[in-house]
């Protein structure tokens, strides 16, 4: 990508260094040095703020940056939350949003996540490399993680598929007619079998896992 890893902007109370976290930190540093060398006298004695796009700086990196700027006579303004500028990394998860009903005989194939604002009827097929989210009734066939992603999920407001596939695992609903749950559900792979659980349980578990991870 031709995108500059670092952009320096002048503001009323000093300069702002905007760092794109696509690049590794070495490139970021090189770019800063390059820019500061060009205007050594101009920058000396000034103050700087740091903004980080698409990611964050670790504490070590932040210290390193502070050191580097000091060499050029630029003092880094202490910021309370230097890591809060996290922009969603949209370019890496392609999402297909469809606002319609997917009918019998229609096939949606997409190398990413598929979101459907509508129903997917019996006889329809949704094949996605990523996740599949149906904000309606899923009655057709859904294949998430079609290129082998075992962490892919299929979620639907009402999950009543004729067949579910995640990565290379295929399952179908039990033959005997059972009561249809009246709540959103989510299907995922667990030990090479597809399991279906209520969505609230899934999201609860997600939050729990996250919290435990932070601790």
């Amino acid at each position, binding site marked *: 990508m031709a995108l500059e890893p670092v952009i320096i902007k002048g503001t009323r109370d000093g300069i702002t260094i905007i760092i794109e976290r696509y690049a590794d930190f070495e490139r970021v540093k090189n770019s800063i040095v390059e820019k500061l060398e060009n205007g050594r006298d101009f920058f000396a004695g000034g103050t700087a703020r740091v903004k980080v796009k698409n990611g964050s700086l670790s504490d070590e990196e932040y210290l390193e940056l502070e050191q580097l700027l000091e060499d050029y006579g630029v003092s880094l303004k202490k910021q309370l939350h230097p890591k809060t500028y996290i922009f969603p990394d949209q370019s890496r998860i392609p999402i297909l949003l469809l606002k319609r009903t997917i009918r*019998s005989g229609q096939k949606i194939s997409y190398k990413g996540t598929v979101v459907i604002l509508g129903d997917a009827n*019996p006889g329809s097929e949704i094949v996605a490399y990523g996740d599949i989210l149906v904000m309606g009734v899923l009655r057709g066939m859904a294949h998430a993680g079609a290129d082998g992603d075992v962490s892919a999920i299929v979620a639907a407001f009402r999950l009543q598929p*004729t067949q579910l596939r995640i990565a290379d695992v295929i399952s179908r609903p039990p*033959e005997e007619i059972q009561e249809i749950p009246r709540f959103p559900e989510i299907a995922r792979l667990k030990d090479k079998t597809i399991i279906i659980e209520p969505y609230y349980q899934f999201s609860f578990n997600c939050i729990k896992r996250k919290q435990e991870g932070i601790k």
Partner: protein
Amino acid sequence: MSQVLVITSGKGGVGKTTTTANIGTGLALYKQRKVVMVDADIGLRNLDVVMGLENRIVYDLVDVTHGLCRLKQALIKDKRFENLYLLPAAQTKDKTAVTPEQMEKLCDELRKDFDYVLIDCPAGIEQGFKNAIAGADKAIIVTTPEVSAVRDADRIVGLLEASGFEEPKLLINRIRPDMVKRGDMMSIEDMIDILAIELLGVVPEDEKIVVSTNRGEPAVADETSRAGQAYRNITRRIEGEEVPLMTLQEVEPTFMDKLRMLFGIKTRTAKGEGAKWTF
């Protein structure tokens, strides 16, 4: 010796798929024949739904003809009946996905492993029809007692004869004896007069067909279904047995029957078929 039968009609909605499902089940269940039903209606597949096998489909007919899977992988074994298999159609493609030559090759392949290959033909006389009849030895023409259905059946007979089919057989579906009696519906004789082909069987209108179709359970296995009985007889005729045609008049209950019914005693006719319907 194995046979490839195509079930066709020209007109839609006369019961080709129901007939395929019932004859297939009948041959497998009552005659212990090894049967495969092929859904040739690519893009509008139904046979899998009628058989209740929709959720087992992984590969289909188009995958087989295009070499994306082996034939054995696409065949679905029926969940209730031994010896019965289904080759489903693709739903997301159309009729042009397959050529008559590919169908012929497929039928010859299936012929090796099965006693009967039943092909469920799509409505119409275009590519889908040409595909369906390509590999078949014999044809069963389904019609209903309607002028339009008989007209289309006649067209089909002509096309089949032109493609070298000898003696297609006629199956009259959804006949209502009471209406025929009143003169409100074409009779069997009227239809045979026009089509001039051999009659394979007559299936009466039966509400149970609707129920069984929706449940994915062919009526032929239902001993209490009148249409099921008709299909059982058709099965036997396909096997070469001489089974007299059913007389369609409902037997009026006699005074004694009415008396028995009044007292809640089950009579021979209470369950229907055997006594009321002679086949």
